[in-house]
């Protein structure tokens, strides 16, 4: 029942206070190790030279852009099905972080693409899917911003997030189809079992570091969002000080 215990925002804030310093420390250590390994331990690529090191940022960022959306989808289920009070906060605060990682994946992808393809942008199936994902993140963020009532906005965004989650595989599939129709085989293949351990280890450490970074940012953002909502409630109360906070009823039979 630990999950439900932390439904209470106050208890959640206490937990964050305890966990956050440790998580931040772990994240810093992981980044130090990951960056050291990717810049000094990992070998140069015999074809791409130093540019291959962009991969150690690009691949974890791309991985996080997907993970972030999955977390939003699960949180949306939490909002709609289990009515967990923190689920909506979690989904809302994950969106900008996800958008940032997606943007990072796109930028590093195109920087990497310049020496590889000779141009910053290629309508490669992967890049295109990630671009669509970025648009979805930005659309969700706009939806949250345009609605005043956080509860309503949360429910609306949850519906859209889930519709998007159902559609993402379809989008991925269609973009792949579209791409193979218009282009020969993909220019690069990073996945696959043949990846060399010298590359794999730095990549894994960086992925762990990025994941930790996500959780640090997400917890911080959730804390801020909870506090922001409290401020909003206090302001609403201040505004309606003359008004009743709640109404009770009295009744007597007529006649």
């Amino acid at each position: 029942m630990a999950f439900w215990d932390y439904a209470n925002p106050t208890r959640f804030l206490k937990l964050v206070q305890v966990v956050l310093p440790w998580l931040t420390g772990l994240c810093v250590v992981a980044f130090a190790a990951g960056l050291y390994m990717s810049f000094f331990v990992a070998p140069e690529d015999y074809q791409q030279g130093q540019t291959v090191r962009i991969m150690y940022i690009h691949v974890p960022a791309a991985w996080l852009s997907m993970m972030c959306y999955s977390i939003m989808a699960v949180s949306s289920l939490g909002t709609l099905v289990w009515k967990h009070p923190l689920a909506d906060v979690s989904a809302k605060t994950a969106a900008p972080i996800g958008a940032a990682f997606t943007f990072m994946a796109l930028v590093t992808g195109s920087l990497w693409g310049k020496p590889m393809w000779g141009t910053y942008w290629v309508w490669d199936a992967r890049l295109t899917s990630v671009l669509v994902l970025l648009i979805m993140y930005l659309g969700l963020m706009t939806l949250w911003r345009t609605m005043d009532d956080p509860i309503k906005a949360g429910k609306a965004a949850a519906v859209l997030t889930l519709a998007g989650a159902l559609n993402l595989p379809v989008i991925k599939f269609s973009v792949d189809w579209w791409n193979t129709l218009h282009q020969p085989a993909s220019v690069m293949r990073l996945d696959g079992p043949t990846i060399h351990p010298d590359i794999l280890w730095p990549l894994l450490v960086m992925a762990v570091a990025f994941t930790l970074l996500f959780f640090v940012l997400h917890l911080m953002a959730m804390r801020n969002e909870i506090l922001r909502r409290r401020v909003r409630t206090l302001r609403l109360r201040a505004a309606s000080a003359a008004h009743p906070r709640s109404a009770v009823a009295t009744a007597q039979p007529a006649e």
Partner: protein
Amino acid sequence: MSTWAIVLFQRDLRLSVRVGGSALVGVLFFLAVVTVIPFGVGPDLNLLSRIGPAILWIGALLATLLGLDRLFQADRDDGTIDLMLMAGRPLELVVLIKCLAHWVATGLPLVVAAPLLGVFLNLEPAAMAAVTLTLLVGTPALTLIGAIGAALTVTLRRGGLLLAVLVVPLAIPVLIFGVSSADAAIHDPVPFLTPFLILCALSLIAAVIGPIASAAALRFAAD
């Protein structure tokens, strides 16, 4: 279908025909989009006939999205949605029927206009038939997916642009398979039926996801 469904369909159709002639405006917008593209890419007929199916599909996508913002908003503004929620009819089906009526009023005219506009784009008769057929199968999916956006933005005063932004990513698969099956009919890198059947599948999926998600969004917007 039972009486209530037929009555709802008739009412929505009547309303869209009587109010502002939305069907005509949609077709005019479609015509405008198709007209400006040659100004952008140049009057080369070979090029135009090559990208013709894509132009028609993008025009249809934009025309559909622009007409969707009032799908539920008019009914919300005058309290009709509240009564529909209480009417004892499944809201998902209500949404599906409203979408169907909306498509007949605004989507079907686009399909009918497509062959005419194909003339401007120097399309072969076979290509024209293929584009029209794919539009006939694919535009309902656009309406049904767009309904999600319309339901989400129903409380917003000016939700039209946001609706388009929210819906476009979800509509990409429909566009891809619509254009590729039209292309497949003209110069066949793949057989026509493969992408066409996937397009049909997408429409059917949209007929499930669209009403369910829209109904959920409308229920949340009621309070």
